[in-house]
């Protein structure tokens, strides 16, 4: 089902994917510097999925996401400075520092509340689809969730309701549980009696697709077809986007397992090496798309280096903005319980 992306579009997607990668690397660095407390989840290794799907959504469409939301919020176009400020608990954050890393949400970009409860966002996204259908404007609700969400009971209820009512919901299951690591060494891998996640959606008559979630072209093609079905009233559709988990997400707390991404691995100037060479060679979505665009052309290699430099500068500015932003005033702690 993969149709090659036109180069212009591929560069646009790579731009956004690299922005997410550099953002997440900065989050990891800031956490290790104790600039914020609390647990967090990074989107490294899954950038192609969020960016490709978001590139197909309109302003009217709704998005629901999870604890692993940074990439989705940036992919949809949120300001990296305000996103970083939220993670640092600053008053300039997207949510004034009240939500934090697990709850980044930008309602002006169509985000429903970002639920940090596993499975929570699936059913909220179905509500988004219900609203879209009630309005009758052809909008869709795109719901991103991990494979673990399908272990929760409410997910079944949500899939069933969406199917019964033919709601325009695009379910994007980001299955990042493939790969191999020592059992018990870190975050649990998929704990499900079924090895075929699509079968769960199929059991309630939802059309399904399985794609390589690290292949921006494949995700773009599948999501384009799925969104068209939803807009035509033939939803919902379930996409399983399979990625090989980034090694840094295997431990209970993220670790800089693959270091700072060296984009010269995309241009061929540097060869992947070390313990995680296979992941860098075959499974890193940013490097994969970069390789496709940069291989063999000096102009493209230069463009890639320039894009990376621009992106690093943007993230440096975002980090500086966040670090310079004030913490919320304690007098505001009781504000916004009610609208």
């Amino acid at each position, binding site marked *: 089902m993969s149709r090659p992306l036109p180069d212009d579009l591929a560069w646009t997607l790579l731009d956004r994917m690299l922005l997410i990668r550099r953002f997440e690397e900065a989050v990891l660095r800031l956490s290790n510097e104790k600039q914020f407390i609390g647990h967090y989840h990074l989107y490294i290794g899954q950038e192609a999925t969020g960016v490709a799907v978001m590139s197909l959504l309109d302003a009217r469409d709704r998005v629901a996401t999870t604890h692993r939301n940074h990439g989705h919020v940036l992919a949809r176009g949120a300001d990296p400075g305000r996103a970083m400020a939220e993670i640092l608990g600053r008053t300039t954050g997207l949510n004034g520092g009240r939500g934090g890393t697990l709850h980044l949400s930008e309602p002006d970009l169509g985000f429903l509340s970002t639920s940090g409860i596993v499975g929570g966002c699936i*059913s909220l996204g179905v509500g988004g689809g219900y609203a879209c259908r009630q309005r009758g404007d052809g909008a869709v609700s795109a719901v991103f969730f991990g494979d673990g969400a399908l272990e929760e009971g409410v997910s079944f209820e949500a899939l069933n309701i969406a199917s019964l009512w033919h709601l325009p919901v695009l379910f994007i299951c980001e299955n990042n549980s493939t790969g191999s690591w020592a059992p018990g060494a870190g975050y649990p891998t998929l704990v499900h009696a079924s090895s075929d996640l699509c079968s769960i959606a199929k059991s309630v008559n939802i059309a399904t697709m399985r794609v390589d979630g690290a292949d921006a072209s494949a995700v773009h093609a599948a999501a384009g077809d799925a969104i068209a079905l939803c807009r035509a009233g033939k939803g919902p559709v379930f996409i399983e986007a399979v990625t090989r988990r980034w090694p840094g997400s295997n431990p209970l707390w993220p670790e800089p397992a693959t270091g700072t991404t060296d984009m010269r691995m995309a241009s061929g100037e540097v060869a992947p090496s070390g313990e995680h060479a296979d992941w860098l060679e075959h499974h890193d979505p940013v490097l994969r798309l970069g390789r496709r665009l940069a291989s063999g052309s000096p102009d493209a290699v230069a463009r890639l280096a320039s894009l990376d430099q621009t992106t690093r500068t943007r993230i440096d500015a975002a980090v500086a903005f966040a670090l310079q932003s004030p913490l919320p005033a304690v007098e505001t702690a009781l504000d916004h319980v009610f609208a």
Partner: protein
Amino acid sequence: MPTQSYADALVDALHDSLADDDRVSLIGSYVLGLGPQRHLMDRIRKDFPDRIVDPPTAEAGAAATGIGAAMAGMRPFVDLGTGSFSFLAWSQIVNEAAVSCYMSNGRIPVPVTFHLLHGVRGGGAAQHSHSPQSMLCNAPGLEIAVPATAADVYGLVRTAFASANPTVIVSHAKLLGIESPVPAEKQPIPFGTADVKRKGGDVTIVANSLMVHYSLAAAAELASEGIDAEIVDLRTIAPLDERTILNSVARTGRLVVVDECPLRCGIASEVAGTVAEHGFDLLKAPIQRVTRAHVPVPYSAALEAAVTPDAAKIAAAARRTIGARR
């Protein structure tokens, strides 16, 4: 003044809200349960067939569908059926709807309305007799209405639909058929305004929901003994109208709090604590709480009655405050 049943006034409120606002829809149509009033919903099904849907048996999914739709700007009303079923949607109500506004810095309000039938309904046993509203009070971010009369349920439901916040309308299953006076033009009622249902100078009885009717019956019994009870109907428990409670206690010096939630950490405890904290000097006698006993509700009618508040228990508590000396 004409009278109307609680159920009929509730249906009026839903009908008027659907007529006024295209964003309103009903998720779950068995708002009046399975009793004789259920046919009153037929006029909504007839007039708004495209805006009423019945979900599968999936309380969490239905609640979240309403919550997500509210986050997307709609005004859904989600009927959860028997209040005991709300526990299946607990995460959605208390950990999604209630927190979203705060967690987003006020950017994502959740104007969803939940409805549930609470209380000891007769033969419901432990799993179909819950009054979850005191537990819901521990979830900051929810507005919770506990109407007792036709005029009040109409007014509070209308206000719930107008509110930008998640609201829970809690109707006692035994209220549905109770007739009460209604004005020619029923009006919205602001949240946080308790109502003095009976004036009296000797003892304040604070009640809500069905307990208002039991308290009025107790007041009639007490009146024959020369004790003049004042009945304060909370109408909403979140927000709580502390001023009306304290003003009444300032006049009477005595307080009985009646509630069908279990004793511990219940609404009666909250009201008692509020008066103890802010009105200690007003009290001439210890506060009395009349609540459901702190046990699961038994099936057998004899045991069910033994653990549930009634007019006689309320009157006895009022007499204790009169007899006591401080």
